[in-house]
């Protein structure tokens, strides 16, 4: 086993204690959103979207949003706590673990959480009959990519702040607008051109688009390769930023 | 800082308790105590953890209603006149509960507002008090980066912001380093000189000897002894103590051979204590009996000896 696996193991052991409350945020809330918007509001969207019912159309968007939100939930308060309150990182740094092990192990756990909630959501979506293509099996991979693309840079951000007010600011000013304007609830084609480009720059829309292609069995075209590469870029840039911030904070 | 000492008119004891009881469910924290504290006095509650000191202090601070007995603070009834009594108390709790979102100065000024002190007066008084506790230079700093000793001093300053008639200090120096403790003692001593009535709890004997005119020793919710530090030592201990260390695993084997020296012999795992009136004479007697301890020490009896004698050596946690 590599050292980062020991770190992952620590987080998994901890998770045995807290998994119940995480079910709420990572499964129940997305489900409620699906019922409230997909079915409730969807009933009034009589024309459907692009030939699909509103529910079928929005569920992949919700799946990608859930991946993002789970990743962000795990890379904000828990990371801050590991630095500031419980100070787990400092205990780990006192053991023969390197920065990469501590960060890598924790990121691996975050992705594990993403995978878990996406798997559950997929089962529900299947039961509601909103998965229209066998390509839906690719959804967990896309979700992992989206998860890593946001978890790594957000962990870097969290490692740079000392008060959880700044986490609330991130959620309010970045996460919420991104969830609401990344083509989850309505097509981004109806956004003004400037806002549309903001959506293109942020990672979530690419995740939504790829997931939607997978569950509806649309031909993603060659653009999909670029979208994947772009998300990989977010992962790589996020990793190096986070590595740098963790080092600044742990090696003093 | 000059402290305007006010004589409390028409009241003999600032604190008057008879048969005071506090119960939490089945647990009796304070089991019928009688206490009187006079104006200008420094009064101490001594006792191990769980003796009921803090519960007593919370009742005196009018934030914990007594379960039974009589309690009068400044001549008033805490059950009825809570706000009016608290307006004239200064409270320094065991754990600092300073406001982490405010600066050092703001901690004092906002607290003053709870007493209805006008803003201008509050600012002037806060500046004065910060100088008094030697925190003047940290006025604009946040609370969090302050050391334990600084936080304690700030809490003490906060307790003085309403110029109280009675200051309650719950373990004022627990957890502080020696320099910080001495600074706090020195400041409290000055208050005492200015005639402020102090009531404190502690489990440090040196603190009680330094600060208290009069004290009670509490154990298991009851008062087991009362008096001035000197009087307590005279009553419950001898004038001097001889500590002997023998080069053996079982100090007890020497107990028999020491029989008859002094008033009392106490055998501990690492040493033997002889409670005597003349320490040097007793040590000479030990040598005369050709017992040669590896180490010996003659010292004055302290409040610690009284305390351990009255409340036992077993850990209470």
């Amino acid at each position, binding site marked *: 086993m590599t050292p980062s696996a020991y770190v992952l193991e620590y987080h998994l052991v901890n998770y045995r204690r807290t998994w119940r409350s995480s079910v709420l945020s990572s499964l129940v809330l997305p489900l409620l959103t699906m019922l*409230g918007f997909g079915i409730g*509001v969807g009933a009034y969207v009589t024309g459907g979207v692009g030939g699909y019912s509103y529910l079928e159309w929005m569920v992949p968007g919700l799946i990608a949003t859930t991946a993002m939100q789970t990743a962000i939930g795990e890379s904000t308060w828990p990371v801050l706590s590991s630095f500031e309150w419980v100070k787990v990182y400092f205990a780990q740094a006192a053991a023969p673990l390197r920065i990469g092990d501590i960060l890598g192990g924790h990121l691996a756990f975050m992705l594990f959480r993403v995978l878990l909630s996406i798997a559950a959501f997929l089962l529900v979506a299947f039961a509601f009959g909103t998965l229209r293509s066998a390509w839906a099996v690719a959804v967990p991979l896309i979700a992992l990519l989206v998860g890593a693309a946001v978890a790594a840079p957000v962990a870097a951000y969290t490692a740079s702040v000392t008060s959880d007010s700044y986490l609330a600011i991130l959620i309010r000013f970045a996460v919420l607008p991104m969830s609401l304007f990344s083509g989850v609830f309505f097509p981004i084609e109806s956004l003004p051109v400037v806002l549309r480009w903001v959506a293109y720059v942020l990672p979530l829309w690419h995740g939504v688009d790829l997931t939607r292609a997978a569950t509806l069995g649309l031909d993603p075209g060659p653009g999909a390769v670029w979208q994947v590469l772009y998300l990989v870029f977010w992962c790589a840039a996020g990793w190096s930023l986070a590595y740098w911030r963790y080092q600044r904070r742990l090696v003093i | 800082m000059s402290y305007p000492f006010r004589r409390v008119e028409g009241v003999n004891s600032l604190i008057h308790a008879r048969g005071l009881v506090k119960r939490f469910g089945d647990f009796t924290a304070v089991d019928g105590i009688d206490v009187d504290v006079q104006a200008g006095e420094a009064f101490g509650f001594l006792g191990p953890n769980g003796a009921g000191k803090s519960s007593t202090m919370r009742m005196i601070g009018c934030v914990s209603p007594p379960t039974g007995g009589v309690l009068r603070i400044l001549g008033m009834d805490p059950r*009825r006149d809570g*706000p009016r009594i608290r307006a004239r108390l200064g409270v320094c*709790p065991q754990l600092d509960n300073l406001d*982490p*979102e*405010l600066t050092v100065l703001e901690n004092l000024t906002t607290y003053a507002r*709870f007493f209805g002190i006008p803003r201008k007066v509050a600012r002037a008084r806060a500046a004065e008090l910060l100088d008094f506790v030697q925190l003047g230079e940290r006025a604009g700093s946040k609370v969090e980066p302050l050391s334990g000793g600084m936080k304690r001093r700030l809490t003490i300053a906060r307790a003085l912001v309403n110029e109280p008639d009675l200051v309650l200090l719950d373990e004022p120096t627990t957890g502080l380093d020696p320099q910080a403790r001495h600074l706090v003692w020195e400041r409290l001593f000055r208050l005492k000189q200015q005639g402020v009535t102090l009531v404190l709890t502690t489990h440090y004997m040196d603190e009680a000897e330094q600060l208290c005119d009069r004290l009670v020793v509490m154990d298991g919710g009851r008062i087991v002894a009362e008096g001035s530090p000197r009087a307590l030592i005279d009553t419950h201990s001898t004038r001097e103590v001889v500590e002997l260390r023998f080069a053996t695993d079982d100090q007890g084997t020497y107990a028999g051979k020491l029989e008859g020296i002094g008033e009392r012999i106490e055998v501990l795992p690492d040493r033997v204590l002889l409670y005597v009136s003349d320490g040097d004479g007793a040590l000479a007697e030990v040598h005369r009996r050709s017992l040669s301890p590896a180490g010996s020490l003659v010292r004055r009896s302290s409040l610690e000896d009284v305390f351990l004698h009255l409340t036992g050596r077993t850990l209470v946690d």
Partner: protein
Amino acid sequence: MLTLALPRRLVSFEGMGRRSAAVAERNVAALKTAYWLVMLGGLLEPVLYLFSIGVGVGALIGEIPLPSGRVVSYAEFVAPAMLASSAMSGALSETTFNFFGKMKFMRLYEGMLATPVRPIEIALGELAWAMARGGIYSAAFLVIMVAMDLTTPARALVSFPATMLVGFAFGALGMTISTLIRGWQDFDMIGAGQFALFLFSGTFVPATAYPEVLRWVVEVTPLYRAVDLIRGISLGSVGVTQLVDVLYLLAMLAVCLVVAGRRMERLLCK
């Protein structure tokens, strides 16, 4: 002759207002950059929802029929609901998360209670503070609604006191919840409950769209009453149900305040 035999501490209002104000004042002193930004974020939230759901999804829906038969644009329908739920969430965030933090984590109230301040005065002071914050949110959102032609200026003016009532009622509810919960872990539950209310209180679709049983459940929840009240005013269709809404919210306010004061006394004055 019948005399008032109530214990004095229950009927003494002397100094109450001043001491409650001092509690609110502490929060003003604690205002720092980060907090301002968090507050601004709270202002932004309903606006973002209004544009995303009201305008964005609204373009897919077009117009929506009210139970009365009248047809309004989807944005007009959603906007007052966003206003009501932002009044709710503003009041709740101040009186649950922040209040609990001050009580258990910072132990601020222990310090305050060593002064003449009483538990009920802390509750009132914190509530007044939450309302000041909520009032700013509501006023700003009403300005946006008028600017987008989703309501008239006169109706917006009448809506404002209604949003304050909603804020007060939910603030008192939040405070009661804070004195009942065990620890931070329960905040997940509060958040989930709040989100469920947000989704299903006639906010995005009329309650009549739900199956009969569900509809009755929805209609007794507090946020539904708040949405109904404010939507009634902003669409200019006030009737008897709005009177029911007001009475409902007033009752909730009174009951919760009494419970919160009592619980605080039990928690802090042991």
